[in-house]
């Protein structure tokens, strides 16, 4: 490119102890351009972002911002220099106890020259200016907890943009947004691009990447594995570079179930939702898909006893099934790998084997005394079974990569035989290699139980499941056998629209 890069990283290196995470990364960002950074989990994306945003110190290499040496000592310094980062966790970007106006102007309360006393009218005036420039249409008085995730995200970005940054880094900003919400975010990014901001966009989602990318940079094992700038962008090559192997979408030989394991009659999940029935057979893997917030997790929690249905009845293995708690569900043979493992799964004070044995300690104890030897043997077996990369079963969970942590969560629940095995967003924050491992394991072990996965990404459903159920507005609106699927009908169901024309 003719113009000089606004932001340039050269030979960036970073190690944690003996682990080299970044081994000499070069990256250029130009103003008015969206660079998408792709990388599997553990490739070093987060580390790169944290160095650029002043959270971590680099071990070696150079960073130049607008031609000058750039070495931020803290996130605040990075922000003042003009490098603004919006982190993955949306709630980190906003202060829940303050209203929108204060959130938008929060950063002006710090640093040299910040006024000692608050002037509410000035805050509102400044906040209005920020909101207008960013095209935000929400009440400045609104409390943050009353906003949707997307709106909170917008507030966080708008607040960041109030600094007139030269470089904006977005770390998986759509990971908890629905597609309509994501579209609003994309429109905002388009506006920022037009204003000449250099944007580094980190994401796993192909739909985001197709929509936004001017250039794609693939990161693998701490090194740049490929840069793709020629139009039209070669997405497949970028994915391959990130993975280091060709991974086309696998097709499934759909199996038919033998006999019903679980069935639900007239299940009602939410006020005003249409009751639905469903039946799951022995040996089949069924995916429930749909947008974020359509009740997939509500269904998972209902089947797992963490939530009561508003109506209807369930049957598991021929007898009435109405679990009042997860404990009862587990005793009845229904297991759930909950979504969002760091929040709902991992006990961070526990090591790998203690995490795996958690739900089944009773079976691994005699007279209440836990048998650690048995726990460790079981964990070693599961580590081998799922190919978990760790030094031993006594490793801390925090030393494992995201994909391996997720495998531990899956291994935890596969340690005992289930009748109904459920996984809510099992591929969330997991690199594609681990995702294929987990999916293959699920399919290989499917006999003898009903397997139900809840996924937002259609690709994940298509490459894992025998049968796909589509949810919308807390009910099931469609069913497809995973062979020669009518994608138009499926997508229309996902979008919650009636199918038009002849099918």
């Amino acid at each position, binding site marked *: 490119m003719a113009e000089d890069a606004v932001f340039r990283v050269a030979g960036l290196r970073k190690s*944690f102890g003996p682990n080299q995470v970044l081994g000499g990364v070069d990256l250029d960002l130009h103003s008015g351009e969206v660079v998408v950074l792709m990388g599997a989990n553990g490739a070093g994306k987060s580390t790169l972002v944290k160095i650029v945003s002043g959270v*971590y110190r680099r071990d070696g290499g150079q960073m130049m911002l607008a031609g000058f040496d750039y070495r931020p000592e803290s996130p605040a310094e990075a922000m003042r220099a003009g490098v603004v980062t919006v982190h993955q966790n949306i709630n980190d970007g906003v202060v829940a106890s303050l209203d929108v106006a204060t959130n938008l102007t929060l950063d002006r309360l710090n640093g040299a020259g910040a006024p000692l006393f608050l002037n509410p009218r000035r805050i509102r005036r400044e906040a209005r200016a920020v909101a207008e420039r960013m095209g935000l249409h929400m009440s400045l008085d609104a409390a943050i907890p009353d906003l949707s995730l997307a709106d909170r995200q917008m507030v966080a970005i708008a607040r960041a943009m109030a600094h007139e940054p030269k470089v904006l880094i977005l770390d998986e900003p759509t990971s908890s947004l629905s597609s309509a919400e994501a579209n609003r975010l994309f429109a905002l990014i388009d506006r920022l691009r037009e204003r000449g901001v250099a944007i580094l966009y980190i994401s796993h989602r192909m739909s985001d990447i197709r929509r936004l990318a001017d250039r794609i940079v693939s990161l693998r094992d701490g090194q740049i594995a490929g840069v793709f700038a020629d139009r039209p962008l070669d997405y497949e090559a970028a994915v391959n570079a990130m993975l280091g192997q060709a991974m086309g979408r696998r097709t499934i030989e759909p199996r038919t179930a033998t006999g019903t394991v679980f069935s639900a009659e007239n299940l009602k999940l939410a006020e005003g939702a249409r009751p639905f029935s469903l039946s799951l057979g022995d040996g089949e893997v069924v995916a429930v898909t749909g947008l974020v917030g359509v009740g997939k997790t509500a269904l998972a929690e209902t089947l*797992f006893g*963490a939530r009561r249905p508003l109506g209807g009845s369930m049957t598991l293995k021929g007898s009435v099934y109405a679990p009042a*708690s*997860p*404990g009862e*569900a*587990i*005793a009845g043979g229904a297991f*759930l790998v*909950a979504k969002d493992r760091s*929040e*709902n*799964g*991992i*006990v*961070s*004070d*526990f090591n790998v084997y*203690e995490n795996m044995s*958690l*739900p089944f*300690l*009773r079976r*691994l*104890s005699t007279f*209440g*005394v*836990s048998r650690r030897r048995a726990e460790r043997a079981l964990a070693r077996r599961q580590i081998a079974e799922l190919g978990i990369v760790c030094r031993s079963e006594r490793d801390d969970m925090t030393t494992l990569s995201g994909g391996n942590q997720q495998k531990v969560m899956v291994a*935890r629940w596969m340690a005992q035989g289930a009748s109904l095995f459920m996984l809510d967003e099992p591929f969330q924050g997991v690199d594609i290699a681990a995702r294929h491992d987990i999916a293959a394991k699920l399919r290989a072990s499917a006999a003898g139980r009903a397997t139900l996965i809840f996924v937002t990404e259609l690709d994940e459903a298509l490459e894992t499941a025998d049968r796909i159920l589509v949810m919308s507005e807390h009910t099931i609106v469609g069913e497809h056998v995973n062979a020669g699927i009518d994608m138009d009908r499926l997508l229309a169901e996902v979008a919650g629209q009636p199918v038009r024309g002849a099918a």
Partner: protein
Amino acid sequence: MTSRDIAIRYGFLALLFALIGFFAISAEGFASPQSAVFIFQSVAITGILALGVTATLVVGGFDLSIGSVATSAMMAAAYVMVVLEQNALVAILACLLIGAIVGLINGFLIVYTRVPDLLATLGMMFLLVGLQRIPTEGRSIATGMTMPDGSVANGKFSDAFLALGRHRFDFFIPNLVPVSVVVLIVLALLIWFFLEYTRFGRMMYAVGSNERAAELAGAPVKAYKIWAYVISGIFASIGGILLAARLGRGDIASGNNLLLDSVAAALIGFAVLGAAKPNAFGTAVGALFVGVLLQGLTMMNAPYYTQDFVKGAVLVVALVFTFALSNRGKR
């Protein structure tokens, strides 16, 4: 293992042994069985309370009411024997019942009404400090005292009950080990085994580390939390029984330092063996550490009013050990 890891892991124990060595050399009579027993005896009651509060720390809670539970139990024991003229067994059962009930109420407030643990137990502490004064209109309880209605209380502490405070078991040397020390050791072993080796203890740690994950792994989280407070309450009431037996009266003014001392012991315990989390062994060592230090300093003629300062300093150092040197909360 790097030298840093070793320092974190064994630093505090090394410090304890160094202290013992130092006092043994410089304070005459420190290195004797009597002195050792005296140290144990001096920390017995706070140690028992600290072991109880450890259970609540394990589930991610806190119990500020333990000190007042102990003094309430002490007053109750005196009241039952002196005013109601009952025997030792009834007195002990009444105390344990009070501990269990207070624990249940604490647990209920925290789990079901969702009052934050510090606030709920702070409120309960306040309530108990007041409650224990009501039956006697704020007076201490001793044989021959005049009751609010003008009658004279003629009951007395039974010999069996007083033996809890005064009897000493033979251990190599005749009449060496007091009952309170035996109780401390037994309870320490019990709670240590419970927390480290039973599935209930493990689940309590899971609840403390990630409540939601424990719940989704099928654990009855609410029950575990309530049980932790019941354990804490019962341990505190045992401490109160021993306190009453030692004093031989229901002294309204005693037990002021119990809460802070025992919480300090439990928090010092975080630093032992680099656990960086509540643990029974650490709590016991923490209590001993404070005991050794105070006994040694006293024998070296340090004035009594420096004691709290020393305890506070030890606590601060231990907390630095736990949070700054270990890997908690940073990469």
